[in-house]
């Protein structure tokens, strides 16, 4: 009986041994492939004006910027008064660093056909310009209390030194901007929003403190969502609002969105 038990235990151990052993030769071959897919990239400081300092990972102290300087992951950049810098991450992703800004390139890598860029904004402002290109570009701009993810489009992210949050101004309306800040849900989370040209912004989300707000061409949240309806009773032509494309698609067009949320425009049976 004892021998049988010992034999059974030995058989069980033999059967389970591969599970506890290290990766097989085939698996070991797969891991370098996965690692090879992630390719570290370098940003290029294509242009600068004024006093711009850079601290690369290999630098002990800050050094003066130079044209065509290569900035790898972990590099920091600081601009003084009346000084700007232009960074080219890839052919289609450009970042303009505005005056009085300190930013750090947290990550810059190519993952297959995706470009993954992460910029940490300590204070100041940057303008992100992502054009269509071979790589699908996903960029994340982190400020102390908030994160803005950008896929396509052009806009400015500002991080005031005092408040810790950041403000976002969109220049174009294509692409996706997702802005998350630690704090209060402002009530439009997950809502699809259009700009005042009628273009739909996909996946536009806001979670922001009072100092954070998203701006569409100079309008703040109150103007966009609440002030819009104030005083409309006395307005002789209350429907001449180019913002809501569903209310301005003409009397004969079918209403596809939120038609029940508002009374129908004049002339509609």
């Amino acid at each position, binding site marked *: 009986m004892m021998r049988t038990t010992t034999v059974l235990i030995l058989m069980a151990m033999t059967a389970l041994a591969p599970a506890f052993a290290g990766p097989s030769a085939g698996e070991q071959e797969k891991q370098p492939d996965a690692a090879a897919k992630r390719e570290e990239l370098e940003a290029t400081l294509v242009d600068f004006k004024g*006093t711009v300092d850079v601290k690369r990972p290999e630098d002990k102290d800050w050094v003066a910027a130079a044209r065509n300087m290569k900035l790898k992951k972990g590099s920091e950049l600081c*601009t*003084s*008064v009346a000084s700007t810098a232009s960074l080219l991450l890839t052919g289609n992703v450009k970042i303009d660093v505005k*005056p009085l800004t*300190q930013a750090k390139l947290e990550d810059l890598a190519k993952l297959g056909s995706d470009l993954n860029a992460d910029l940490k904004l300590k*204070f100041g402002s940057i303008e992100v310009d992502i054009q269509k290109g071979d790589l699908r570009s996903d960029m994340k701009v982190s400020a102390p209390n908030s994160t803005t993810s950008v896929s396509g489009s052009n806009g400015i992210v*500002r991080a005031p*030194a005092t408040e810790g949050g950041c*403000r976002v101004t969109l220049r174009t309306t294509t692409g996706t901007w997702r802005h998350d800040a630690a704090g209060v849900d402002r009530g439009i989370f997950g809502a699809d929003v259009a700009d005042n040209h009628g273009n739909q912004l996909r996946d536009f989300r806001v979670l922001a403190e009072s100092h954070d707000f998203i701006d569409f061409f100079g309008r703040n949240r109150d103007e966009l969502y609440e002030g819009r309806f104030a005083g409309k009773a006395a307005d002789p032509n209350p429907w001449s609002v180019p913002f809501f494309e569903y209310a301005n698609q003409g009397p004969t067009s079918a209403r596809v969105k939120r038609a029940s949320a508002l009374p129908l425009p004049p002339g509609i049976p």
Partner: protein
Amino acid sequence: MNRFRLAVLAAALATALPLFALQDKEAPKQEKPKESRTAYLRRIFEKDRASYGDACRAVLSVIKNDHSDADHAAIVGDLGGRGVVNADWGLQESSLLTKGTLAYMVCQALEIKGGVTMRLFGINRRYALRECLHRRLIASGTTDEYVTGRELIDVITNATIHKEQGHTDSQYK
């Protein structure tokens, strides 16, 4: 023997005294290394209280649209000539900066004339702060409130925008 020793000591002291005197004269020359380029900006960001010297350098940079590496005396002399700072304040480089003082400097640097009161009675720190609050150059505060380093950076950023565009609206959009 004792007299001889005393005489030797006295001679040694007499010989060494000029050396000590030289060292004393040389001591003030060993000033702290001058900050250059953007280091001052990062230092200001980390400070709980901004100093008058920080504000002077930053405001002069805004006026000249260029970074200034000059020493404090030269900067204050330059600002005094432009009427941006008042010599009667008696502030030192390390003096803590108040919002009223900063507002006065910003208003003078940007040549903000202000409203009726400021035009009638002239600029002072209280009216200057009210004007800066109105123009959103300074977020909030009272005249004698100290300015933090981060607030100073924001004010200078706003002042730069105001100088370029005539307002700070783009900072809040």
